[in-house]
Structure formats: C-alpha cells, structure tokens
C-alpha cells in the first residue's frame, strides 16, 4: 500500500532470466496462470488500497477535527448508530466479496483442470530434492524441469516420506506433494528462461535448500533435449535421487548401512562372498547396478534390487564417474 504498482519495478539488471521484469509486488509473469491471476491480484490490491485509505483517512480526519483540546468544553454528539449506514456497509462489502469469490473461483477451475494433450511429467519430491520423469520420452530422474514454451505441462506429483509443496513463483502455481497419493497441477510457460522451484511445505533441515530450476526452452530445443535423454546426467544428483545413498555411504565408513561404503574403493581389490577376488572397475560397478546379486561382496547380505531398466546408459556412466571421484 505504500507503493503504487506501475511506478516501481524491481531492479533486475543481471540474472539468469533476461526478461526478468517483475514489479515491486509480483515477480515476473512467465505462465498463462500468472497473466490471468495477476489481474485479480491487482484488483484486490486496488480495492484494498481504497478501503484502507478510506478507513485510515477518516480516522485521521476525525482525530484531527474532534480532538479534545485543553481549555475547551467537551462537546459530543451522542450518535448511537444509523440503520441506513450500517446496512450499506454490510451489503456493499458483501456484494464485492461475492464478486471476488466468483472471479477467483472461475480462475481456480481453469487452474485445476489440465488441458488435454499436455506434456506429462512426473514429479518426485523427497528430502530434499526434486526429480522429474518424462514417461513419454523415457527420461527418468532429471534434476531440472525442462519444458517447452507455449505448451501445457501437467505435473503428477508424489512425495517419498513427508509432505512437500511444489511452488514456482513466476508461474503462480503451488500444490502440496504428499506421500502415498498423487496430486496434479499444470502450467503453460509463456517466456523463455529459468525460474525457481521452491518447496513451500516445511520438511526439515534441508527445507530451504530444496530447490530446483524450471527451464523454459523453445519447442525445438526441448525436442532435442528430450532426444538426448535429458542432457548429460549428473552422477552425484542421481546417487541421491535414485536412493543409492539409502544403502551406500559415500565415505569410507559403513555408517550402519546395509551396503558397502564406496569411497576410495574404485580400483581396489574386493573379496566376494564365494571367496573369489576381483578388482573394482567400470565393468564390476556396472554389473553391480544392473545385476547386483551376481557378485556380492563378502560379509554383506544380497539385498540390493536391480536397477536394470530404471537407469539409462548415460546415467549409469554418470554414476560410475561419480563413484570414481569418492575419496
């Protein structure tokens, strides 16, 4: 209320999104929902500004005019009420509120129903990362949400353990992501650029670090990205996103986990449960991922599930490269 919207725009000289032109109140509009919803936001904003100025203006005016002054007699007009006025200030706000309600409700219905033919993406939220699967393109575990400009995208979301919430301020969308159930939201990005994804349902230590980017690219770029299986995979992120970290420590200490620790093991000699020995190389790591029961390290229970079909070749390579770096 202190600042009138068109006069000030947020400073945005450098940044990832060249078109980052938000206002002082709202960040950049980068989706159809934002373009639509912001109209209502500003309507309520100006309405609120009007009523706020009315209430505070009258209060200040009355206080100035009717202030009791030293040495002057106290004059009061004992008005106890006015039916006409009271009805007016009940009915007028009520009518305005009903209007806002219908406006927001019709927008809400649009926002609730994903259009047919939308690009489907599965979102998995877990402490404290986002991962994105594109079932139609066979991309699993992408760590960034890459979407084409101008095409509706439908997100089907679920969480691993606790409630998270998927929020893209530039798109004005938000939906809780729950364990054991799917929630759905959708958007249609209108501008190229990359935008923040935040978790907005408190989820523990890493809540404020549960961040990812949504990258809006042209349709051609998207197709190319999808063709290449989602760009170069990141072994470190995959290690967490694919739950390797649940059983394998990335230090030299086992830390009570079921699987062998991985740091410093690459290139070393390993004794297997049948007494045989081998050197840990690319082939052994790969085999251990796709056929874990084949060669089990001595002293460990053969409990690892296979990841054959769940990881693409580039992803396996990235994981191997990551394991090599562990010291």
């Amino acid at each position, binding site marked *: 209320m202190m600042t009138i919207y068109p006069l000030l725009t947020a400073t945005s000289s450098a940044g990832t999104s060249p078109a980052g032109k938000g206002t002082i109140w709202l960040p950049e509009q980068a989706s159809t929902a934002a373009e639509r919803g912001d109209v209502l936001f500003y309507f309520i904003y100006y309405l609120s500004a009007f009523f706020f100025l009315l209430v505070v203006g009258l209060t200040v005016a009355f206080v100035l005019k009717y202030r009791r002054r030293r040495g002057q007699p106290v004059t009061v007009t004992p008005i106890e009420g006015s039916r006409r006025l009271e009805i007016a200030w009940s009915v007028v706000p009520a009518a305005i509120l009903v209007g806002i309600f219908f406006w927001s409700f019709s927008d809400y219905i649009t926002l609730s129903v994903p259009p047919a033919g939308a690009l489907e993406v599965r979102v998995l939220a877990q402490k404290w990362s986002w991962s994105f699967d594109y079932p139609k393109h066979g991309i699993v575990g992408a760590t960034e949400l890459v979407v084409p400009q101008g095409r509706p995208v439908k997100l089907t979301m679920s969480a691993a353990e606790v409630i998270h919430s998927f929020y893209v301020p530039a798109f004005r969308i938000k939906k809780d992501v729950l364990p054991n159930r799917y929630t759905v939201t959708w958007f249609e990005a209108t501008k190229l650029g990359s935008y923040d994804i935040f978790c907005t349902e408190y989820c523990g230590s890493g809540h404020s670090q549960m961040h990812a980017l949504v990258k809006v690219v042209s349709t051609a770029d998207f197709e190319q990205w999808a063709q290449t299986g989602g760009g170069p995979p990141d072994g470190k992120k995959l290690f967490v996103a694919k739950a390797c970290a*649940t*059983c394998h420590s990335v230090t030299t200490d086992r*830390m*009570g*986990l*079921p699987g062998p620790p991985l740091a410093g093991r690459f290139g070393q000699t390993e004794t297997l449960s049948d007494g045989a020995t081998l050197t840990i190389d690319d082939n052994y790591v790969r085999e251990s991922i796709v056929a874990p029961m084949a060669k089990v390290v001595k*002293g*460990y*229970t*053969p*409990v690892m599930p296979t990841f054959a079909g769940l990881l693409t070749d580039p992803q396996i390579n990235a994981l191997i490269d990551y394991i090599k770096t562990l010291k």
Partner: protein
Amino acid sequence: MSKPTGDQAPLLQQPFLQHHFHSAAQQEASAKLGMWLFLAQELVFFGGIFLAYGAVRYFYPETMLSAHEHLSVPMGALNTAVLITSSLTMALAVHAAQRGALRALRRNLLLTVALAGAFLVVKYVEYAHKFHDGLLAGNYLTAHGMLDDDQGARLQQAFRLRASPEQVHFRFDARYPVTREALLRAFGAHKMPVRAITRADAALTVSEPQLAHARAFNGALDDPAVWGSQAGSNTFAVTFAGKPHIFFGLYFAMTALHGLHVLIGMLLLGWVWRRAGRGDFSRAYFTPVENVGLYWHLVDLIWIFLFPLLYLVR
C-alpha cells in the same frame, strides 16, 4: 437472569452457598449450566475421535468388517447391559437425593460404583485377551498369540518394520522347522486373514532407520548382518489382509479414553458418596449428585455409540 430469584433464606441456613452467589437458586443454576457446557465439550472431544473412526471406515471398509470379528460381541453386550443398569441406579440415586432419602442415595451410589467396576473388569478381560493374541494398536499388532503352542514356543521375535507396515516378521528358532502352511493354518484358525507369507531370510532388507524403528518398538534386535546371513534361519514375513493395526489402534484409543472416563466417574461417585455420608446433601441442596449423574449418563451414552461402532460392524 439478571435478577436473582429463588429462596432468599438467610445465609446461616445454607452453609453450601458460596460467598459470591446471591442465592441458592443462582448457585444451582450456575452449576447446572457449567455442567452442561462441560458435557458439550466432552461430546465435541469424543466427536473428534468418532470422526477419525468415520474417516478410517471410509478409507478401509473391509478392514473394519474383518477386524471387528476379533471383538467379543457377548462381552460387549454384557458391558452394555452393565452400563445401562448403572445409569438406572444413578437415576435412582438422584431421585433419592430429591426426596432427601439419604440411605437410598448412598445405596444407589454404591451400586453404581460397583457396576462401573464390573464394566472395567469385563473390559480388563477383553484387553487381556487382545494382549495375549497380540492384537494391539499400530506397530504393536503382531498377532503372535495366534500361533499354536509349538510355534509359539519357538518364536523368538515378532515385529513390524515401518517401511512395510502391513507385514509382521516372525523369527523362529532356527533349529526347528516351521512351515508357511503351518503359519497359514494357525492364522486361519483365528480368522486372521492373511494375504501372503514369504520366507524372509533372504529378502529382508533392513536399513538403519528401519532397524532403529523396529528396536524402539520391539526391544533389542540382533545385528541385521547376522540375521540375514543365517541362511537357514526361519524368518517369515506375514502380510495380513487389510489394515487391522489401524482398527485396533482406534479400538484401544476409543475404549481407553472411555475407560478413563469410567474411572474418573467412579472417583466422582465415591466423592459424592462420601459427602452424602457426611450429611452435605439435603432436599434443598444436592447439585453435585445431579451433576455427577449427568456426567455418568454421558459416559453411558458414549458407550452406547462405541458398542455398535466397534463390535457390530456391518
């Protein structure tokens, strides 16, 4: 309301009249209104847990149906009869107080306490049976008491893992054979529907958090490495059909809360009984008897809802 009405007898004749009331009538009306408000909040309190029950029944109707079979309808019906009778004796006690019949008042109060005690005894028998069978709330539901004597003797551990809440793991002494079929028979004999039984020796993955969880609920467990590597050990993962652990969670939560109210009721009845013996009450003043009576009828009423909801699921 604003004008105090009723008898304006001198204070000396009304030792029970507190200093901030103008009259006995005002005091009594206040006490009654206070009691009704208290009952209203009790209803909301139990209403909350009834709502939770409704939600669970909506989510898992088949669980409600199958799990309630383990409750004994005769026991429940007996307790219903006991409580209804106690409501009658309570009403008689209030009636006696109205007539100023102090002996009858005390006698009926004692009868009510005795019936409340009988209710708790029956409840104890029911609880003991559930504890024996292992039909407990949530994580504690193992149903291990349903195994036959031989299996029971060889059972070393029965526990749940958080990651697979529908499963109960049974670990038997490795020196004796226990078969899937024998387990299936044992649970079948107790109407405990089983969806699957697998030997879990090899397939059992236990991560550190799961283990911590299992330890917290089931006492010390052996090291999982030892556990898993005993290739010949008899560990079975039994998946029960439905979610009986939720049903029994609700059963114990609801009946324990109600039982607590019965216990509090007994204390209140005892207190009123003692005051009656001290000569505190007369035809002019017996508000505490009435209020405890109201409370007792509410406790009874709640059971009238609990009985069909838990014991008579259709």
